[in-house]
């Protein structure tokens, strides 16, 4: 399976996917960590994929999304944005709205 096929399979078979540096439990970059905190606060389940474990994945996702930096968030197979966009959307309530529009359940945030 090519890296493009791997990425496509991940973003289509999981509602919310975060391509990040490190893991949701242990982010290894401040920008990835910010998105983890936002997703945890919103209370949405997601799959974290660590690009530091694979140079193929790290380069592959940049090409796949036509986006030069990590983290990158996908919802229902669609690229939503990187750290700045996710934070702006969260602060404006747009991220929560997007998840609701896509029919993704979130836990009530604490």
């Amino acid at each position, binding site marked *: 399976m090519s890296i493009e096929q791997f990425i496509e399979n991940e973003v289509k078979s999981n509602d919310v996917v975060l391509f990040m540096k490190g893991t949701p439990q242990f982010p*290894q970059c401040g920008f990835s960590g910010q998105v983890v905190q936002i997703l945890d606060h919103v209370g949405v389940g997601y799959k974290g994929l660590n690009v530091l474990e694979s140079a193929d994945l790290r380069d592959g996702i940049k090409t796949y999304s036509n986006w*030069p*930096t990590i983290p990158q968030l996908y919802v229902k197979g669609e690229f939503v*944005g*990187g750290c*700045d966009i996710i934070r*702006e959307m969260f602060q404006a309530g747009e991220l929560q709205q997007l998840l609701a529009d896509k029919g993704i359940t979130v836990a009530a945030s604490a």
Partner: protein
Amino acid sequence: MSAKDDITKKLSEAFAPQRLDVIDESHLHEGHSGHRHGGETHFRVNIVSPAFEGKSRVERHRMINTALAAELAGQLHALAIKAQAPGEAGA
């Protein structure tokens, strides 16, 4: 030319911004994997330009990424972006 001057020049030419701040935040990332000796790796850009009118957030970022493609392929490791059209710019 410093990386900051280079980024400022490229963005000025591409978007004729009404406001443009290019801030070198490399010193905040000492010891981080993308940091290198001499800095100039992590930048923050606040830009207000009519070019962003009617564009989505992703489209705005892509426009900036395209303008800075050479820098992003080089030593520029992280680029935080706030891109607004004139009517949206807050205080």
